[in-house]
């Protein structure tokens, strides 16, 4: 019985392969985008986790030097002998590779390859190997005099070795970079200040440092993954709805011939699950390809923006298979529940009557409008009262889904008005006929709306960001030359050397510390013409620079201000006995850290040992000064950067950040175009009876084909027009809500009408491309087929 029924159910797909293709392709595309994005995300996360586990950065508190960047070994021994359970780390760069030396005996549990099954301790200590992944090992091979062991789990561009080897390779005997604090400390431990007053304790970052920063970027990606998935599910929903509708008479016949309803529904559900699994499987494979092609960009983006190291190659993880298949099955379930329910509820005898279906649809439409209004209302409430990143994304979801659900109604009303004002019988018929097509096309149009809106929203965000950031760089990178020296002595000499040759010397000097309970930096500012003329504030008090210069006030960046809930006029404690009012808040785009800025004198009083080794130099003759520094002072060419270079680098970093987003945008738009194409194609077959009367009354088939094309364009244009405000709303949420929550800064929103026009054009092209073939088919329908409509009724 089951076999016979399955054969009957399957015969439908065999006779309608296009529908089957749409269904599977929709599922595959949806899953592909979702799992591709997830793959990129999880690959990046895995990379951070490896790095964090290797270096103990995320899990453990650390002790860092208050000034300079080394800790004498004696301090480590003194701490241990006072009962501080800390593990030493030596860090340095060799040919762009971060070499990390640890002491496996004192490193808190299972750091690095030692003790993780890679190699046992005596062997590690005896052979003194350097662990690195294959790519890093290849880089180091000829550069270091130590055996290199390939450990694939090692973070990219990182090499791990024993502390002794690291000190030898880095020429840093007796010096440590930082100390990792074990979470288990013994009783009776004296305070840190008593043993090592030159060290600062930095709290564990709760996950890795980079992980927290890059989370917002991943969140962005995930949102797009979900959006793409939603677009795909619209397609699947359409395909399933159509297939079920077409199989209604078959379902009735099957039941009349003795197939129990429950068994039938179960079989149909399992049939769909099989499709979901097949679609999911294809989707995960496609997603892998998407991820593989995006990953180099993502890696570059993250590396540039956050300094995080992401492995450029993809590893296929079992979790993607699971999550890909899972989301495919889930999506199919969501898309098919309505159709299956209606089959289950359909009375055996009434089912063949199309009216019943139409009434059910009428109800569904009312519900759809209600849900849409409800979601938009929630979106409004969230925009006003919501707080936090999750709320921001909730707002996005409500806004987008609510708008998508409202689309058919809005289009219907618009078309009705067009019909009313139409002149001529053809035009009236055209509008009426377009309205009639709406239900069949609405899912595809919703997909287009979402894709367009996402495109508008993201391009607005990216362009706003770029505009703001370029302006910010112009103001911030005012110095013509930036110079690095190797040590304090050279720095002092440099200041003396350049003093007569420059109009201003701006040392770059800061310490990492905690402000208002948050990790932050305190910057020293040598306040002069450059600061006074170039610096712009988001908010400022009168005589801001005079007060800061006098050491009576402090400046904070927007990140610190927002995170700590401080603003101009509030007090900020820089040290236990130094509390100053905030005189200004400045934009600090791209910096993950909170920052406070004080006058050079005050900074020196707070941190007398800190000394700058980097300087910005103001000059009218950058080339001349550069030559003098190299020729007369003996600086290397690499230690001098000019402003243009830094600006170009900073801009390229931000350009790359959004390459991935742009790629996803194009993919999403393509998926929406595909949805329109498939809808039109399936509608085309059902169109013949509707078009036959128009043809019989004197419209040529060619004219009918043209009208079909025009209809697609009209619908696409209308949808695009609706997508514009939705996209702008999306951009506002991204800039003013999500960005603030994720990054800590708010961006002014700029509008780019030309970009939107181009996008609209793209959507139009997509619609025309999608409609072209179905319209052509229609224009070439044999007259016999049209006549058949009249020959036998139903």
């Amino acid at each position, binding site marked *: 019985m089951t076999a*016979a029924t399955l054969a009957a159910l399957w*015969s439908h797909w065999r006779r309608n392969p296009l529908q089957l293709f749409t269904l599977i392709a929709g599922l595959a595309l949806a899953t592909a985008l979702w799992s591709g994005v997830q793959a990129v995300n999880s690959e990046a996360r895995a990379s951070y986790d490896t790095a964090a586990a290797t270096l103990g950065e995320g899990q453990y508190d650390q002790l860092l030097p208050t000034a300079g960047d080394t800790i004498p070994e004696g301090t480590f021994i003194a701490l241990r002998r006072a009962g501080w359970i800390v593990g030493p780390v030596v860090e340095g760069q060799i040919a762009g590779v971060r070499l990390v030396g640890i002491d496996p005996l004192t490193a808190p549990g299972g750091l690095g390859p030692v003790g993780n099954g890679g190699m046992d301790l005596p062997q590690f200590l005896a052979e003194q190997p350097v662990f690195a992944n294959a790519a890093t090992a290849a880089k180091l091979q000829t550069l270091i005099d130590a055996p290199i062991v390939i450990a694939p789990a090692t973070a990219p561009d990182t090499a791990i070795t024993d502390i002794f080897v690291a000190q030898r390779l880095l020429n840093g005997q007796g010096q440590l970079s930082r100390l990792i604090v074990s979470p288990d400390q013994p009783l009776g431990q004296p305070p840190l200040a008593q043993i090592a007053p030159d060290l600062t304790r930095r709290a564990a970052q709760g996950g890795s440092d980079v992980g927290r920063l890059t989370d917002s970027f991943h969140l962005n990606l995930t949102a797009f993954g979900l959006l793409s998935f939603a677009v795909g599910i619209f397609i699947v929903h359409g395909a399933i709805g159509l297939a079920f509708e077409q199989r209604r008479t078959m379902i009735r016949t099957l039941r009349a011939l003795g197939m129990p309803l429950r068994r039938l529904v179960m079989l149909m559900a399992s049939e769909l699950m099989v499709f979901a699994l097949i679609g999911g499987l294809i989707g995960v494979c496609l997603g892998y390809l998407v991820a593989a092609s995006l990953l180099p960009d993502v890696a570059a983006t993250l590396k540039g923006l956050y300094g995080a190291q992401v492995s450029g190659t993809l590893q296929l993880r079992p979790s993607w298979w699971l999550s890909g298949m899972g989301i495919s099955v889930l999506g199919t379930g969501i898309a098919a529940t309505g159709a299956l329910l209606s089959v289950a509820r359909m009375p055996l005898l009434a089912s063949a009557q199309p009216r019943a279906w139409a009434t059910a649809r009428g109800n569904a439409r009312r519900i759809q409008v209600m849900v849409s209004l409800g979601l938009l209302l929630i979106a409004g409430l969230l925009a006003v009262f919501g707080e936090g990143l999750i709320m921001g994304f909730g707002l996005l979801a409500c806004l987008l889904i609510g708008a998508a659900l409202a689309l058919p109604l809005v289009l219907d009303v618009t078309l009705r008005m067009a019909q009313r004002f139409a002149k001529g019988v053809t035009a009236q018929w055209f509008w009426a006929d377009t309205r009639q097509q709406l239900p069949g096309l609405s899912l595809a149009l919703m997909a287009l709306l979402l894709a367009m809106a996402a495109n508008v929203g993201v391009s607005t965000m990216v362009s706003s960001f770029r505009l703001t950031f370029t302006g910010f760089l112009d103001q911030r990178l005012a110095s013509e030359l930036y110079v690095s020296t190797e040590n304090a002595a050279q720095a002092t000499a440099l200041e003396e050397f350049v003093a007569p040759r420059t109009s201003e010397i701006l040392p770059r000097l800061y310490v990492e510390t905690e402000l208002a309970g948050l990790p932050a930096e305190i910057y020293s500012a040598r306040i002069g013409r450059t600061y006074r003329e170039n610096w712009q504030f988001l908010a400022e008090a009168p005589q801001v620079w005079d007060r800061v210069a006098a050491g009576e006030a402090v400046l904070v960046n927007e990140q610190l201000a927002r995170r700590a809930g401080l603003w101009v006029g509030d007090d900020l404690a820089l040290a236990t006995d130094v509390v100053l009012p905030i005189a200004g808040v400045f934009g600090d785009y791209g910096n993950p850290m909170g920052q406070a800025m004080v006058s050079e004198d005050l900074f020196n009083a707070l941190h007398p040992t800190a000394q700058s080794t980097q300087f910005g130099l103001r000059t009218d003759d950058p080339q001349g000064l550069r030559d003098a520094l190299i020729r007369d002072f003996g600086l290397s060419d690499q230690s001098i950067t000019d402003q243009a270079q830094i600006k170009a680098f900073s801009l390229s970093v931000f350009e790359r950040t959004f390459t991935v987003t742009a790629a996803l945008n194009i993919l999403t738009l393509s998926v929406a175009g595909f949805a329109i194409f498939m809808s039109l194609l399936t509608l085309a077959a059902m169109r013949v009876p509707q078009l036959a009367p128009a043809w019989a009354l004197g419209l040529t088939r060619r004219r009918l084909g043209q009208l079909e094309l025009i209809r697609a364009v009209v619908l696409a244009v209308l949808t695009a027009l609706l997508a514009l405000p939705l996209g702008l709303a999306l951009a506002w949420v991204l800039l003013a809500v999500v960005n603030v929550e994720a990054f800590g800064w708010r961006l002014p929103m700029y509008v780019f009408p030309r970009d939107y026009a181009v996008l609209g054009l793209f959507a139009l092209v997509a619609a025309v491309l999608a409609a072209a073939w179905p319209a052509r088919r229609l224009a070439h329908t044999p007259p016999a087929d049209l006549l058949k409509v009249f020959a036998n009724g139903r």
Partner: protein
Amino acid sequence: MLLSVKSLEKSYAGAEGSVPVLRGIDMDVATGETLALTGESGSGKSTLLHLIGGLDTADAGTIFLDGHDIAQMDDAGRAAVRRASVGIIFQQFNLIPSLDVTANIAFQARLAGVYDRQEATALATSLGLADHLHKYPEQLSGGQQQRVAIARALAAKPRLILADEPTGNLDEETAAEVMAQMLSLVSQTGSALVMVTHSPRLAGQMGRQLHLRQGQLA
């Protein structure tokens, strides 16, 4: 007695409350008997046929088919009766559009687990379908489609065949041909036949006639 209907009642919900369609029907059909149900539109003859075929549920009364009261059965039970004991031939031919003629004829027999390929082919041949076995319903004329539906009903070897205006969609000449073939085959198989028709001429070809008027047997 193959079929025994007692005090059968059925009403439908209408715009102004419940509308009675069948009001206390009693009837019996013996094995091998042919019976015509006649009556005007809305007299309830199709509803009666649906109830006998287990397509719908009665409000009151009993329908004993082969000794089982199908009026009391749930969906799964009635489905089992339909596939094993009843063959239904509709006015609209109700073939499965995506299956070819052979598969359509085989379908109910396979559901009931009594499919015999040779018998089915013989049946199709005797109905003049031999040249169309691998065509799909849309490629057949109305008369051919109804012959397929008849073959499908008979291939499952039901004890009772129900036909609802089986020739209603066919032209007169074809209708007569199809009718003759159906009656001939039914008499060969020994099944009982209950046919709804509004045509007195077709009713006259049946062994017995029952006339319905406003939900009651006249």
